[in-house]
């Protein structure tokens, strides 16, 4: 419990910053919504003028773009991107910072097992992600409610927002498993930014084509908003793939971290 609380405390500041960033994105774009709704026809014409592949990359669906959920799901991509970077960063630093900041000789000589250390840290990180998403969801709901032009499904709004957490869990797990193998990285930000943006761009490029199997490559494409809004459910194969990535990565993390050498200052 003490390790868990210590981690939460040390993650406090960065969490606040990430939440603010995500809320800012939502606020900026959602505040445009009333204007776009009013000029719906013009806006649709303008978007229709874009090549179909560009629209697909940007996640734009012309027909639904003037509905609140349609518009929101377009901007949600940027929020998910932001959340993905946060999660991967968290995953990459949560264990490796002890080695990088040379505090391992403090923590890992305490009368606790490595497994307990991993558990405390993973739980703290999951708490942080959950808090981030709950706060973001509360604020985004309020903004959406204020800018709405007609009624919309709160259930679907919730469902598409939950995908932030799903994508974050995947990137967190990937980050954590990468960090136990490469804990001597000087700086993790380039790696996490590179991976997450890489996945995002690949996801956008895949979206231009319509191959279903290619969607497995990028976690950003596991959740297709038009399809969720249309069917009110997540696509099971991608949900399962995401869950497998998370479970395998975290289990590997435990296994490797418990048995690895914690190297001295290099």
């Amino acid at each position: 419990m003490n390790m868990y609380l210590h981690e939460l405390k040390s993650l406090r500041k960065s969490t606040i910053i990430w939440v603010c960033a995500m809320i800012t994105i939502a606020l900026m774009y959602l505040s445009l919504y009333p204007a776009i709704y009013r000029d719906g026809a013009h806006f649709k014409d303008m978007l229709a003028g874009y090549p179909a592949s560009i629209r697909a990359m940007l996640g734009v669906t012309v027909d639904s773009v003037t509905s609140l959920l349609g518009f929101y799901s377009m901007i949600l991509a940027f929020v998910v991107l932001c959340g993905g970077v946060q999660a991967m960063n968290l995953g990459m630093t949560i264990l490796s910072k002890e080695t990088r900041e040379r505090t391992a000789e403090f923590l890992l000589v305490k009368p606790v097992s490595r497994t307990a250390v991993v558990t405390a840290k993973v739980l703290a990180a999951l708490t942080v992600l959950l808090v981030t998403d709950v706060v973001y969801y509360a604020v985004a709901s309020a903004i959406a409610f204020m800018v709405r032009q007609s009624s919309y499904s709160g259930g679907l709004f919730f469902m598409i927002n939950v995908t932030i957490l799903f994508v974050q869990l995947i990137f967190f797990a990937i980050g954590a498993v990468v960090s136990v193998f490469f804990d001597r990285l000087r700086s993790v930000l380039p790696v996490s930014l590179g991976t997450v943006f890489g996945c995002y761009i690949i996801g956008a490029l895949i979206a231009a084509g319509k191959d279903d199997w290619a969607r497995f490559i990028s976690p950003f494409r596991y959740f297709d908003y038009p399809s969720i809004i249309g069917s009110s459910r997540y696509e099971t194969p991608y949900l399962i793939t995401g869950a497998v990535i998370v479970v395998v990565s975290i289990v590997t993390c435990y296994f490797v971290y418990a048995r690895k050498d914690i190297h001295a200052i290099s």
Partner: protein
Amino acid sequence: MNVIEIKNLTKYYGKARGVIDVSIDVEQGEIFGFIGPNGAGKSTTIRTLLGLIYPTRGSAKIFGKSCTTNPEVREDVGYLPSEVFYYDGMRVIDLLRYSASFYGKDCTKRINELAEIMDLDLKRRIDDLSFGNKKKVGIVQGLLHGPKLIILDEPTTGLDPLMQQTFFDLIASENKKGATVFLSSHILREVQKMCERVALIKDGRIIKLERMSALQENNFKRIKVEGLSDLDKTIFDMPGVSKLENGGKTASFLYRGDINNVIRKLAQTEVSNLSIDEPDLEEVFMHYYSKDG
């Protein structure tokens, strides 16, 4: 009972040598010195003992148990690493409280006592502390839970001489209270003053494990000779002579063996001055460590 049992410990980092076939037993209540130059394998041995790294072969146990399979044995261990690093943005007292929280007992009184002894300001932020003051935080942190085994890795670097003395007094009083001390250092003076037994490590191997007193006696003599005329080099050409420095009329060397042999040899030449001293540990140490010695 042996507090520390290291048996045939071998550790390779990939192909790089860590330590080879190290065996050390440390008895309860003793102050054990572990001496070697930088890179000899002192920290590797300690880190394996604490369960930070895994042995390639052999075992390292504390209170009869391995730290990797029984992490709870570290409950009674206090460790001061050679370089201390702590979490950013914490005050000294926060860090010490966090440290204490792992031991399930109230250490507040002891923290205050130790801070008083080491002259440490608990309210300061750790980031703002000098290297020496960080070291003090490390010392308090290592001792606040009243450990039965204290492991010190190069403990005095960064401390001023006055503080070093205070520190050694503190360790001595912990030892009187029953704590076993494992002291790693390359500074011989500190080991010489405190330790009952020492192990010398060189290039990853233990080359000597002996009582402090035996090590100093051990028939080693520092002999200085001054001749009336230039000394014949061949007279020192005998077994037991090492570290020979021969310059004209004077010669000095370490001698190990029957003292009569060297006196008989010296008697064959005209000597104007002769001194035979106990070598200090530094010299013994250099003898063991010099590549040809």
